[in-house]
């Protein structure tokens, strides 16, 4: 089982941290610091596995970003290594040509994607298509709610001024809906 997932850049800035075991905040910071130190100086010719306390960290570097998974000692290393790659492929597909900045400004979306990919520390879905489609659904939902919200806001504003101005006729049916 995955204990936690970290996305860190070479400077050690955390871009995403997801814990599947309960840790105190101070412990989380310590873990993030230690994992960064552990992986950042490793040669690219080294293995992608490194012991971390009583677990092991499977990590992979993409440009300046380190994706690290902390898993149990008995877990299959290569399977998790490819799991990182699959995640990156999904991100790449979603953001079309993903870069670190995408992940920074859209960190909330990355969390959403991750929740569709991994749950309770286990793989939930390994089909890229299924995840991308699901994200599409969520995006639509969001757009719709944004639209409704802005309409509602507009109406509110209009209502307060309705004594002075006529409400725009085109908006009224939407409110009724």
């Amino acid at each position, binding site marked *: 089982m995955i204990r936690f997932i970290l996305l860190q850049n070479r400077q050690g800035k955390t871009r995403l941290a997801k814990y599947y075991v*309960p840790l105190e*905040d101070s412990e989380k910071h310590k873990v993030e610091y230690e994992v960064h130190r552990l992986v950042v100086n490793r040669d690219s010719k080294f293995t992608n596995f490194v012991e971390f306390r009583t677990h092991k960290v499977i990590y992979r570097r993409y440009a300046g970003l380190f994706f690290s998974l902390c898993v149990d000692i008995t877990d299959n290393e290569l399977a998790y290594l*490819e799991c990182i790659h699959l995640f990156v492929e999904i991100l790449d597909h979603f953001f079309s040509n993903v870069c670190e900045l995408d992940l920074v400004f859209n960190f909330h979306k990355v969390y959403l994607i991750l929740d569709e990919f991994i749950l309770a520390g286990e793989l939930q879905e390994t089909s890229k298509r299924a995840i991308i489609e699901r994200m599409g659904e969520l995006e639509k939902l969001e757009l719709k709610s944004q639209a409704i919200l802005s309409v509602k806001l507009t109406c509110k504003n209009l209502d307060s001024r309705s004594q002075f101005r006529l409400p725009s006729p085109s908006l009224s049916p939407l409110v009724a809906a």
Partner: protein
Amino acid sequence: MALSGMRGLSVFISDIRNCQNKEQERLRVDKELGNVRTRFKNEKGLTPYEKKKYVWKMLYIYMLGYDVDFGHMEAVSLISAPKYPEKQVALQSIGTTNMVGYIVTSSLLNENHDFLRLAINTVRNDIIGRNETFQCLALTMVGNIGGREFAESLAPDVQKLLISSSCRPLVRKKAALCLLRLFRKNPDVVNVDGWSDRMAQLLDERDLGVLTSSMSLLVALVSNNHEAYWSCLPKCVKTLERLARNQDIPQEYTYYGIPSPWLQVSVCVCVCNFLLSVISHTFRKRKNEILREVKTMRALQYFPTVEDPNTRRSLFEVLQRILMGTDVVKNVNKNNASHAVLFEALALVMHLDAENEMMSQCVALLGKFIAVREPNIRYLGLENMTRMLMVTDVHDIIKRHQAQIITSLKDPDISIRRRALDLLYGMCDVSNAKDIVEELLQYLSTADFAMREELSLKAAILAEKFAPDLSWYVDVILQLIDKAGDFVSDDIWFRVVQFVTNNEDLQPYAAAKAREYLDKPAIHETMVKVSAYLLGEYSHLLARRPGCSPKEIFSAIHEKLPTVSTTTIPILLSTYAKILMHTQPPDPELQKHVWAIFSKYESCIDVEIQQRAIEYFALSSKGAALMDILAEMPKFPERQSALIKKAEVAEVDTAEQSAIKLRAQQHMTNALVVTDQHSSNGTPQSVGQLSLVKIPSISGDVGSSCQEHTSADQELSQANGTLATVDPQPPSADLLGDLLGPLAIEGLPGAAVLSEPNAVSGLEGVPIPADDAAAIVPVEKDTNSVQPIGNINERFYALCLKDSGVLYEDPNIQIGIKAEWRAQHGRLVLFLGNKNTFPLLSVQALILPPVHLKIELSLVPETIPPRAQVQCPLEVMNLHPSRDVAVLDFSYKCGTSMANVKLRLPAVLNKFLQPITVSAEEFFPQWRSLSGPPLKLQEVVRGVRPLSLIDMANIFTSFQLTVCQGLDPNPNNLIASTTFYSETIRPMLCLIRIETDPTDRTQLRITVASGDPTLTFELMEFIKEQLAGIPTAPRPPAPPAAPGAQPTNPAAPVAQPTNPAALTDPGDLLAGLL
């Protein structure tokens, strides 16, 4: 959630990115937090959009590593943002707000946050509601952070969703993993009775997302109860077949042409779990123990097989296909994916009762892997070879790869080096020990610091286990100390000393070697210790060799003295004393020199050094006496190697399959296998045949001279003694699962360590019935998993009679006690000894004193370093007589568990007594003047433990009561006297008379007299308690209204208030007679 723009958030992130330095960033973050905080304060003005924005900002700030100590409530409240089911559209709008709440909550909080409870109802409504969006959100959050309360209230609903036919796969796969989380955390709460059929149905699932999630769930269910799910096994094999043959797998589930490698891996793990769980249930063993014993199991044919022949055949076919059909390809991802499956198949084959052919295929594959350049594959090759060693007899084949493995030991990547070290350690046996250990030693000088300790420990263990001859063993250890002294723990040199002491043939050799090392210009302090010890014991065996005259040896050692620390000096002093003793005829010059050193250290600030200096000086002045005391140390009793024990203890920390421990366990029993080896000089000698030799105990029952002897080497033998009692701590069941979990913080409430008598207000001044007192004082409560060693009660009673000994012991700690009593004052020292190789944390000792004792405990350190002993002095003052007992509330943290124990302190009534002998002339006037209650009490007790008069007298003596012979003319009676000391009353003479019935020893009449009514009463009860399990009387109200108290005593069988005038008082009769 704003998948589309959320401007404020983007602006904030840009601001942070534009900060030039950390300080600026902090200022910007503080500003934003201030802003968010004020906005949250008047929540009413916030639109859902703003709420979402702020909660996201908080998560971002949190991710940057800042503390976000507010807003948790807001995040949680977003989950339960109002919903309007009648308006579908509005619901959608709110839905995304809830989504933010769910996501942020599960990132910001963990399962232990109280706020989460507030959301349980909403979460449940979302799960049982028909809205798919909310179901998904709720399942995701519970799957990621759900704790026990969630399991209790949600598990059945989640189970329904998983098997519901109307839910989309989207919901069901989340339900499967959500259930897995709840089950893993609380298997007792989640009811999975009858779930095998459901799981079997789930394995027929067409959607691979649901199948993947369900397979993970099945893995957990099988480990918990394999029998119930046995029917799922054929389906697992079928799934594997389907995948491996790539039949009917949607294109989107193939990864670089491999049909879902993750699902394949998961199925293999599941089948493997079936096999391992069968044994673990049959033999009631934990899984990691099983892994250790697979080999034996197989040999005994206990190893389970897949019984159904069809399933068995299919499984073998599919595994064969995987083993043979995996080729190395250029594409890294494809290669990794196929090898992920291959390695899992390999692991399954190892645990399957496979044909030998298949097994040798595996070994051949692994042999190939450990030679490839690709680091990941090489790493896994080494790792799996180590695993293979543990389960099958492939030693000989693996030995062929020894050279290759040694190359990996020098790989630049530490991950590979560690695996190589594990493998070398695992494959070592008598035939290759020399090569491997020498390789390790050679590597030691260049190895990086992170590995040195492990390396030296492993080298030492291997050298001990597989030594072809003992002189080689000594060579190895001395080299080890020479090359990596800082990383050689004391155990290692203690062990070599034990070996040398127990093997006479080895002694000259070891002494000569030690002498050689002393000539080196700079040697490690541990080397000074071991050579000084060895030369002190055995240098006389070298006397004729050049450079080995006592004088030369002395000066070689003495040269090192200025370089060593105070812990080594005592060893050197012992060595000097021994050299001096062995010098025959005496060398006056040497003697002068040594004496000068002794007298120099006579005023040393270190007590140990000072004592040794003084004693050795005195002893060596006496000449002949010295001979006996400083003779060679006797042989050590045979004991398990402390090193191997250490490896076992360390094992608790390391993960299940780490190779070290598996091997250490397997070879534990033959740790001393070196038996029939021949030593360098050709005489057969055997470590295994060591006869048990009793070490003179330190407490000195062998006599004072022997005591000296031992004390001279106390450090060594004590350390050994301590090690010998180390028990590997039983790994708690969820240790691995919760290693990364937070440490349970359940310390004692912040009570002061130093407790005044009135700290326990419940006891203060209030007369407490004996029953209640008993409920408070008592009995060691074992609230935790740490089991005490030995009986705590027995230890307490023993300590009531003597002044030093062990009060408490468990696998982690030993609490010793040493006491001195002087009148009403007592000085106790608690010795808290950490038996582990890791520190004990959050150590707390709290004294709960009864009202009559004033106890001051000096500061107890919060941490006890590994293998260290700390002393905590305790001052006790007795205020007035009482039988109440002080309680030591002791707790510490070990790993994640908190251990707490309540121990009675042996500061009991009899400790404040001092024996006094009274003559007839003193006794009778006193006896007569204390004419009756409350000063003189008498009671007939029945049902006591039958004791002879002599035994009774012995008991009295042990409690500091002087038995006055001949005062009572009746030989069946017994008179005793003592003095009681307390702060409030003068030293008080107490007189006791016991009348026995020679025809019925279970019946006694006890009379107690003293000048203080409370004392008389307490002493009477005390004696009754001691003379057998006589129910004790309730405490008289304070101040005791003694005469009234007695008759109301329901417990005493016959309670007679004595009448001063009554002639029935035997004392009076007695006095009258005389």
